[in-house]
């Protein structure tokens, strides 16, 4: 069946009430029955929940073949925990038929690709997939199609019981002996633990893996002891150098700065740019640099930002410390400045992924967002964005919070160079739709700005401010005139990944790529 973004979704995927994407806010007002976990009572006081090893924790939690294990990715490319747990489960306990439900998977998880190839891991549900895992899934080696969800779609699916977590593994920079966890105070700090919170509440069993056991109570806790079955102390949960970069630096690339300045101009031209406005930006070069130019416009108009959300890094913390933003609410931290600020700098708070972006609760932060500035691997003339598949059709990206913030915000700005190397960023048809075009409002490139025709109000704003803009078709034609018209990718029939829209409908599928022959 063809969905609202023109993608053909195979009928066999449309079972058990699964529908195709029908446009944003299609699910508004509908009811959900939340799925409750089956958990064990610890009525009799226990001195400590610390067990000797991951294997012991798995045994204590009744781990068996066929289960779903969940992980969160706050340790990013430094994460050791997912690999340690899967190795213990498969190599030491001999389990198979396992499903991984992760908030994201990256290069750090390359060893898990082996378990997919061996058929031990048969299901993957994640918000991002890169490295070897992306390769083997793209090659059709995973037994069932991977399910890709946004950061808001993931807690939605967990709460709705569409993914039932048997055991959640919490990578905790610090924990006490009862399982109160925090992202700070240890040797492998990650700051916010927002993606792990829904897992801990909805999993049948919860195992905390830490490398820094601290005195009880470890408070205020990100994941609470009342949800935790076992605590394992390991040598190291991750490589601190890869968990948080030293400091996200603002780009000095003149092309990035020109685009960033244009982003700030667009923002300043809208009626939403007023005292107390709200803002999220990505951490890519031009997106991050937009902070700098935005500050200038804020000073000129003598206004302050009310609040900012998202993955947080240094430049936003800087604005908070200067008093130019009221509150920062944080689901993940990207650099040490942000890690060292959360719950330390006044008005820098932590939130769960559900509070951040879940479309099925009663109003996530993204719903109150004025502006979001995001990057794209590709954007097509229907304003559909791809941030998941490369130009070779291989999985190597992450929708993350992209579709959530785009859908919730009043003004979603995509900033990207027109071409990258020989790849046309602005194209006729994106490889995979990860954020539907009806959620994207403005495109800023180094060759011009285009406004989605669905937003005549924003077109008028730009016209009134004297900001030149062109059609997105003319940008696409310009791109093709520079790099040539790309050949269409050739696909097999087999679906290797299903891309869920944030509301749970099917937005697109990724098929297995055919081997290329000249």
């Amino acid at each position, binding site marked *: 069946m063809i969905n609202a973004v023109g993608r053909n979704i195979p009928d066999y995927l449309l079972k058990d009430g699964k529908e195709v994407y029908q446009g944003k806010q299609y699910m508004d007002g509908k009811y959900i029955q939340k799925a409750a976990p089956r958990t064990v009572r610890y009525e009799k006081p226990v001195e400590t929940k610390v067990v000797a090893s991951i294997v012991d924790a798995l045994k204590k939690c009744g781990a068996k073949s066929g289960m779903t294990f969940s992980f969160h990715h706050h340790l990013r490319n430094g994460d050791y925990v997912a690999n340690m747990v899967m190795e213990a489960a498969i190599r030491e306990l001999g389990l198979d038929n396992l499903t991984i439900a992760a908030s994201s998977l990256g290069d750090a998880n390359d060893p898990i690709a082996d378990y997919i190839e061996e058929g031990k891991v048969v299901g993957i549900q994640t918000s991002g997939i890169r490295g070897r895992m992306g390769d083997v899934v793209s090659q059709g080696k995973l037994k069932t199609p991977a399910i890709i969800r946004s950061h808001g779609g993931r807690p939605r699916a967990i709460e709705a019981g569409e993914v039932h977590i048997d055991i959640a593994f919490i990578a905790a920079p610090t924990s006490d002996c009862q399982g109160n966890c925090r992202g700070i105070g240890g040797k492998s700090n990650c700051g916010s633990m927002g993606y792990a919170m829904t897992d801990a509440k909805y999993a049948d069993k919860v195992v905390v893996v830490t490398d820094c056991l601290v005195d009880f109570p470890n408070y205020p806790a990100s994941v609470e002891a009342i949800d935790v079955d076992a605590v394992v102390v390991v040598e190291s949960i991750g490589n601190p150098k890869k968990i948080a970069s030293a400091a996200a630096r603002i780009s000095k690339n003149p092309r990035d700065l020109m685009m960033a300045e244009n982003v700030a101009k667009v923002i300043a031209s809208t009626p939403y740019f007023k005292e107390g406005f709200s803002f999220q930006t990505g951490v890519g070069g031009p997106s991050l640099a937009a902070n700098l130019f935005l500050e200038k416009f804020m000073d000129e108009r003598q206004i302050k930002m009310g609040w900012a959300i998202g993955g947080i890094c240094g430049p936003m913390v800087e604005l908070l410390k200067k008093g130019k933003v009221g509150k920062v609410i944080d689901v993940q931290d990207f650099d040490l400045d942000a890690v060292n600020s959360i719950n330390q700098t006044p008005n820098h708070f932590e939130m769960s992924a559900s509070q951040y972006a879940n479309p099925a609760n009663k109003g996530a932060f993204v719903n109150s967002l004025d502006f979001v500035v995001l990057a794209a691997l590709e954007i097509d003339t229907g304003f559909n964005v791809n941030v998941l598949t490369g*130009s*070779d059709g291989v999985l190597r990206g992450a929708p993350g919070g992209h579709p959530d913030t785009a859908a919730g915000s009043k003004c979603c700005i995509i900033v990207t160079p027109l071409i990258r190397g020989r*790849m046309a960023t602005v194209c006729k048809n994106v490889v995979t739709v990860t954020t539907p075009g009806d959620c994207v409002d403005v495109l800023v490139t180094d060759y011009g700005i285009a406004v989605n025709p669905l937003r005549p109000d924003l077109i008028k704003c730009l016209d009134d401010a004297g900001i030149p803009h062109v059609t997105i078709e003319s940008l696409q034609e310009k791109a093709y005139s520079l*790099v040539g018209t*790309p050949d269409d990718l050739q696909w097999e029939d087999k679906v290797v990944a299903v891309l869920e829209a944030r509301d749970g409908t099917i937005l697109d599928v990724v098929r297995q790529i055919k081997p*290329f022959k000249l």
Partner: protein
Amino acid sequence: MTIEKSAVAGTLESSDAMVTVEPSKNGIELELSSSVMNQYGRQIKAVVLETLDRLEVKNCKVTVVDKGALDCTIKARVECAVFRSCDKADKNIPWGGAVR
């Protein structure tokens, strides 16, 4: 032109291509790898063969390692490698003639 010895032009930098030509007796043998193979492999092949044809190279083993170069870059790298292979890259290059 005749490929007299092996010669290289270009780099492995992003948006460039490294082109190696070697003598051969079996017509044109092309070996191509590219970071944009699926979308532009056929176009790159066509540009390389057209360029060799324009330079009247009949026998040549040509290896292209492409890192997302535009057509104009690929043409220039092929031309340069061919001229270097017969020591004609230093002077009297036929600008506007065979090289354009």
